[in-house]
């Protein structure tokens, strides 16, 4: 899916040594020594070693690793909050490690907005003033930046809170302010450093969902750091797995789940074998609503809006699956005053049996966005499987 996308950031051969003699540590690394030996011999910590990857324009790239894997160092090397020891980080033809102080400031202002794990909001500034921070630093006129900040706050659902101070807000709301501060800045890249890790699980799920929607709408190039597999699978277009300062695997969530690069990844996603044991039945959800073939378009539309659906399966009285209708076809039909939805049904959805292994379902999702229908031998509708559910099921199995 990435072949014809533009590269936004190209990272090559990036290494970071913490300590006063980085050269020595890199020499040892080149001789094939690993992180613990280098620490023993030189007292230098090899934070990152030979990192190569690209960030494509408009994608949401997740960098995932456990603590100590170097993920925080990596994201901070991108905007040089941490100085890389060697390597290239090219964004729009500028090699970031080579920039002088002034050019670096300019680069940070234009290209990077950052959202932090512990929010890092300025406690002496109001929500509005926090959202304006990046623009203020860049010298945007007060009236203009107030306007932009308001729009950003609205996007994250915080309109009406402009004059509150961060300590008056809940954790979830504080992180929305952090997100608004980043969005208002309108930089080309969004860096999110464990942005949702400090939130409780329910809020976290909501925030992930909202980030996905925002990302879908704005196509903002995003680099997202997390230690949480669920989160990575849920939001990532692609995932980079990091271990001991090295990249173990880069791939889409499906690729990583179905085809782990080595033992480490396998252990990370222990549920990977589960995808062969787990079947469609495990990930299946009850159908929220179905339509009858002799229902009218308006009844069906109302039913769909009640349940928040874009498409609905049509069954006969004994739940035999007949087809699927979509909301736009229904609306048209309603206008034209058609009586039955029978003639609107389409058949290009996928059906599987309850015993279908989960890993076979991945491929089906990339073709169509409809939920997959699970039917028994008599073609009776048992349930549906949506994309997130497959990954959730695998991820949960992996944790057991």
């Amino acid at each position, binding site marked *: 899916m990435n072949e014809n996308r533009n590269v936004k950031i190209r990272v090559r051969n990036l290494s970071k040594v913490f300590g006063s003699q980085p050269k020595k540590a890199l020499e040892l690394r080149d001789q094939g020594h690993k992180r613990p030996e280098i620490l023993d011999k030189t007292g230098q910590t090899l934070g990152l070693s030979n990192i190569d990857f690209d960030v494509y324009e408009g994608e949401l790239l997740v960098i995932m690793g456990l603590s100590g894997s170097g993920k925080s160092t990596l994201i901070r090397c991108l905007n040089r909050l941490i100085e890389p020891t060697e390597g290239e980080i090219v964004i729009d033809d500028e090699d970031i490690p080579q920039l002088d102080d002034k050019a670096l*400031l300019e*680069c940070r202002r234009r290209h990077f907005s950052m959202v932090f794990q512990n929010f*890092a909001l300025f406690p002496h500034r109001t929500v509005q003033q926090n959202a304006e921070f990046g623009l203020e*630093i860049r010298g945007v006129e007060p009236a203009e930046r107030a306007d932009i900040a308001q729009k950003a706050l609205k996007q994250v659902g915080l309109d009406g809170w402009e004059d509150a101070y961060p300590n008056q807000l809940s954790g979830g709301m504080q992180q929305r302010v952090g997100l608004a501060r980043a969005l208002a800045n309108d930089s080309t890249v969004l860096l999110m450093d464990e942005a949702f890790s400090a939130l409780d699980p329910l809020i976290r799920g909501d925030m992930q969902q909202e980030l996905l929607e925002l990302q879908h709408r704005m196509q903002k190039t995003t680099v997202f750091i997390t230690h949480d597999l669920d989160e990575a699978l849920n939001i990532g277009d692609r995932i980079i797995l990091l271990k001991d300062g090295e990249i173990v695997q880069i791939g889409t969530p499906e690729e990583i789940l179905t085809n782990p690069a080595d033992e480490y990844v396998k252990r990370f996603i222990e549920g990977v074998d589960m995808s062969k044991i787990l079947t469609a039945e495990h990930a299946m959800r009850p159908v929220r609503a179905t339509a009858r073939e002799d229902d009218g378009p308006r009844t069906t539309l109302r039913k769909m809006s009640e349940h928040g659906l874009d498409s609905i399966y049509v069954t006969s009285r004994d739940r035999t699956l007949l087809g699927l209708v979509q909301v736009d076809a229904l609306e048209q039909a309603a206008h034209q005053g058609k009586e039955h939805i029978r003639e609107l049904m389409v058949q290009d959805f996928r059906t599987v049996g309850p015993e279908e292994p989960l890993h076979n379902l991945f491929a089906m999702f990339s073709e169509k966005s409809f939920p997959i229908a699970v039917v028994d031998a008599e073609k009776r509708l048992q349930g549906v499987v949506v994309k997130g559910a497959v990954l959730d099921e695998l991820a949960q199995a992996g944790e057991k």
Partner: protein
Amino acid sequence: MAIEIPSIPLGQWIEGGLDWLTTEYSGVTRGISRVTQTGIDGLNDALFWLPPWALLLIIVGLCWWVSSHRLAIGAALGMALIWNLDLWDPMIETLTLVVIATLVAVVIAMPVGIAAALSERLYRTIMPVLDFMQTMPAFVYLIPAIPFFGIGSVSAIFATVIFSMPPAIRFTTLGIRQVPVDLIEAADAYGATRRQKLLKVQLPLSLPTVMAGINQTIMLALSMVVIAAMIGADGLGSEVWRAIQRLRPGDGFEAGIAVVILAMLLDRVTQSLRKGRKA
């Protein structure tokens, strides 16, 4: 037979150094002296020009504004007592000395404190100097002040500034250093220059701590300007000094109580400023 170890002539060296400073830099000291004296006279004149009741009302109003009606009532009673005891004029003179000394101390301390917060090397150089300034018995500063600036209020200011400056420096440094690193990181990430970082993040966030330091400086300054009566500073201190010489404990306590009232007022007002005005 006792072996005689000659004592190190430390005192002589210091005196030699001070003599040299006095003669070589007499122009500088005279200049400082003139400017400081002008400041003292100007502020004294302004405060004396106001009738006591007007100044009293201003002070009460200020207390009300920055804090509560309780402080305002306390201020009114305390000021009225000082007026009644006929200590109004010396109280004004003391207040002037405290204000000028604090201003000078803060003007020097803020940049030094900021610089020490941002430079590890300066920090390590300056901390022992501050220890020295603070632990040296306060009276000792009075002695070199006389050859520098002569008997009188300017010498009192000099000694007071040296004695009262350390907390303002220390607290400024502390305030800036304790700004959470993630906020510094956030400012950096959005491309703030050092100056923007200082003005928009570090200083505003260190303000409560800086104010605590200034409060300390004011308290130390007050205690020092009273002692400075020994080298001819005017004010409540000289009332106490006179009472000592004439062995009149009643007069001494009256002046002492006036100092306490002034101290409490200055303390409460600056504390309230530190906590931010009542919401």
